[in-house]
């Protein structure tokens, strides 16, 4: 168990150790030329995404949890759907739609008779565009957590504020919002972690930020040490976010002073207010899901014949097999960790589980660099050892193999399955085990008759979520995949990079379709998830 945790934290420590690594020439060069640009772009990107997800997420959460207007029930879960879009896919789609040759601009020209450069049209492939793209697909994190926080609030607290003279709106600003603040902060930090982790979008938009910088330094300049140093700086950003997120979650626990949960007050909106609320919820859904999905669908219809062939099937099979085996491994390891923690609740064990749980925050690019450095070192040692003593050259044993990829997936996604399995196991109280034992069941019978039926759903959920995450994963796969080994995500990225946006749509659409699975899982529980009922 401790071994597993050590192994999985190896990449993080490798990267972190590069902070102390002496600077070389290339690093000097980076420092003088692009580092400031990376810092500035990353900061602006984070600022923009934070502001936009905050407004959209909290606004929609408030409307769907405490107001009544047409379509409210539908919006409550449909607003999660943009989560199915990986950032890079929505970025290609909008680029295709808003490009000079795309349908929107063509339509404007046809309508007005203008020609090239006769009119102003915002450039989608810019910092502002990237902020818009990220906000459209990441606001559901803020929405999900703040909605849960609004729903958890005791009705008493809100009613007390009304009796003390607050109007509906001032009780929102003065009571509900401050109470939900820890959850909102946690949601924004999650959205920002995803923003920092992204490679596909920023690289497609040609933005200089850390993830693209790591790629350029590694593959363009061929300097692993400088790339790792960049990764280390990115890691510091991420850890700051992790600390903020954990800290605000911890505070959230102490917030409930009253435990009475009657049904929440519902403010009925009429007339233009209802229309406003409807639009406020409809636009994020329209731009974050309906429009890009429709565009992808149209493209897929056009290019379906030429794109779907034997190699596409093989590609899909590759992706599915890879994702399924990663998910199975993640669930198996998660079960091992969770049962270990339940059985031996020591400090070391708990700490190991916690270390493993940090991986999810680490950008795929960083994980990939952190995986490849120790593995390459190991490969080279084995190779030189064997060729010195036996005259055999093993070449790259691990770092160019599926093992490296699997290792990276575990570092990044094991946290997801551990969290899911732990929460499922947490519901099986110790007293249930004891009740079964007092009824003459042996521990192994209990596993079979009590745990298995109760854990089935959780294990399946954990499997699904890791499966989908692996399907969507881009940067780590791009760096670590064995030569000529392709997945849907990589293929979509490559085609889009060659400006064959329409051709990439079939692969992209499949990823989005798979991505909808956890969204539906989440949304099924969302209206039922109300404390005290």
């Amino acid at each position: 168990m401790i071994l597993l945790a050590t192994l999985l934290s190896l990449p993080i420590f490798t990267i972190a150790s590069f902070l102390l690594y002496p600077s070389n020439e290339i690093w000097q060069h980076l420092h003088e030329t692009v580092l400031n640009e990376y810092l500035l772009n990353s900061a602006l990107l984070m600022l923009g995404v934070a502001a936009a997800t905050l407004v959209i997420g909290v606004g929609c959460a408030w409307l769907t949890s405490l107001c009544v207007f047409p379509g409210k029930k539908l919006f409550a879960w449909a607003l999660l759907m943009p989560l199915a879009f990986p950032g890079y896919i929505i970025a290609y789609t909008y680029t295709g739609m808003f490009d000079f040759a795309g349908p929107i601009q063509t339509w404007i020209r046809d309508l007005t008779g203008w020609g090239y450069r006769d009119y102003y049209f915002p450039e989608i492939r810019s910092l502002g565009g990237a902020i818009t793209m990220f906000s459209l697909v990441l606001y559901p994190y803020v929405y999900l957590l703040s909605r849960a926080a609004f729903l958890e609030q005791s009705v008493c607290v809100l009613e007390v504020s009304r009796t003390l003279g607050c109007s509906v709106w001032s009780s929102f600003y003065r009571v509900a919002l401050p109470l939900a603040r820890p959850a909102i902060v946690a949601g924004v930090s999650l959205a920002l972690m995803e923003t920092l982790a992204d490679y596909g979008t920023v690289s497609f938009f040609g933005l200089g930020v850390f993830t693209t910088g790591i790629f350029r330094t590694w593959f363009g300049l061929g300097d692993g040490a400088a790339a790792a140093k960049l990764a280390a700086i990115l890691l510091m950003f991420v850890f700051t976010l992790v600390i903020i997120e954990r800290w605000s979650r911890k505070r959230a626990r102490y917030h409930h002073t009253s435990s009475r949960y009657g049904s929440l007050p519902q403010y009925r909106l009429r007339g233009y207010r209802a229309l406003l609320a409807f639009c406020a919820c409809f636009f994020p859904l329209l731009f974050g899901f309906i429009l890009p999905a429709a565009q992808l669908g149209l493209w897929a219809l056009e290019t379906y014949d030429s794109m779907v062939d034997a190699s596409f099937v093989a590609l899909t099979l590759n992706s599915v097999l890879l994702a399924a085996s990663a998910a199975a491994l993640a669930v198996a390891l998660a079960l091992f960790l969770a049962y270990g923690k339940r059985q031996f609740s020591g400090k070391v064990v708990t700490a190991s589980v916690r270390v493993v749980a940090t991986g999810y925050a680490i950008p795929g690019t960083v994980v990939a660099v952190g995986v490849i450095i120790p593995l390459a070192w190991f490969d080279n040692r084995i190779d030189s050892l064997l060729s010195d003593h036996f005259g055999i050259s093993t070449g790259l044993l691990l770092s160019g193999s599926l093992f490296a990829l699997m290792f990276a997936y575990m570092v990044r996604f094991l946290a997801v399955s551990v969290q899911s399995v732990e929460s499922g196991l947490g519901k099986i109280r110790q007293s249930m085990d004891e009740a079964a034992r007092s009824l003459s069941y042996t521990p192994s019978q209990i596993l079979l008759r009590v745990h298995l039926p109760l854990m089935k759903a959780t294990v399946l959920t954990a499997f699904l979520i890791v499966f989908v995450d692996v399907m969507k994963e881009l940067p780590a796969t791009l760096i670590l995949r064995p030569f000529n080994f392709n997945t849907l995500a990589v293929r979509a990225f490559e085609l889009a990079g060659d400006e064959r946006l329409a051709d990439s749509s079939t692969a992209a659409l499949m990823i989005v379709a798979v991505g909808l699975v956890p969204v539906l899982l989440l949304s099924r529980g969302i209206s039922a998830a109300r404390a005290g009922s």
Partner: protein
Amino acid sequence: MTSQLDVENLDAGYDDQQVLNQVSFSLQPGEIGCMLGPSGCGKTTVLRSIAGFEAAWRGRILIDNREVSNSEFSLPPERRNIGMVFQDFALFPHLKVEDNVRFGLQRLGRQEQQARVQEMLAIVGMPAYAQAYPHQLSGGQQQRVALARAMAPSPAILLLDEPFSNMDVELREQLAREVRSILKLENNTAVLVTHDQNEAFAMADQICVMNEGSIMQQGSGYDLYHRPLNRFVADFIGQGVIIPATVESTTTVKTDLGRIQGKNRIDASPGSMVDVLIRPDDVVHDDASGESAIVVEKAFRGADFLYFLRMDSGIEVMCLAPSHHNHKINERIGIRLNVDHLVTFSRT
């Protein structure tokens, strides 16, 4: 020996910390025992040691004259023939009520299982809920199912760990009486753990009052209230005050409230000072009495008033008066002592 449960000089604890210190008691078949004490006194540890979830450090436990725990050996819980009702009931959420009750009957044939399940559900008054799932039941109903499940295999000992603590206060005593009658119906030997003395009085034949890992006194509720052996039991069971007194003879003492005649020999020489326990029901409101005191505080309790009185000497006592005697605060009322059981403690 005919007893159903024997706990002999039991020491037990968690990690390095000893929780139980020389705990001994026995129960006859069909008897209901109760471990009563404040939280952290070790009462739950006693129960978990009997169940086999905790090992004995020293001493031993016998169930039905079979040794199940000693310092070297601990029979696993599943082989002890016990039934247990947990504080949170621990019903299996994925099983229907009838399957929960059936859970411990896997050694019986299909038809016998069905018959026993029906019988148990009838005893606890839940036959209509056989097909329901635990989350569809109220707390009291879950409690009954948990009881039926624990009793279904006819265990040698039934263990109940604070079974009413999740219930509404008004329901607790009623449920305790109900559970008692169900246990008596099946002639079960049972051990109850609780911190609520009313629950203990309503349910148990034998009560062990525990404090800091030791049994302070064992007896019926009547004995514990009227014949407490030490200050802890006197203080923990019921209400009352302790006032100073002078020993006059081997059976009488003199207090500010008057002379008290006891039935038993006082363990102190005449002329020395002792402390005397005065219960609220030992002080009778009587306007004809020569003694009087001032009402400091009062609590109306429906059938009676509990008055807190201060006497001229500054000593405060409590007095239980019929509910018709409504006096104001600061009013002076006549009182006299009517002590059936004289309880004295040497002064410290």
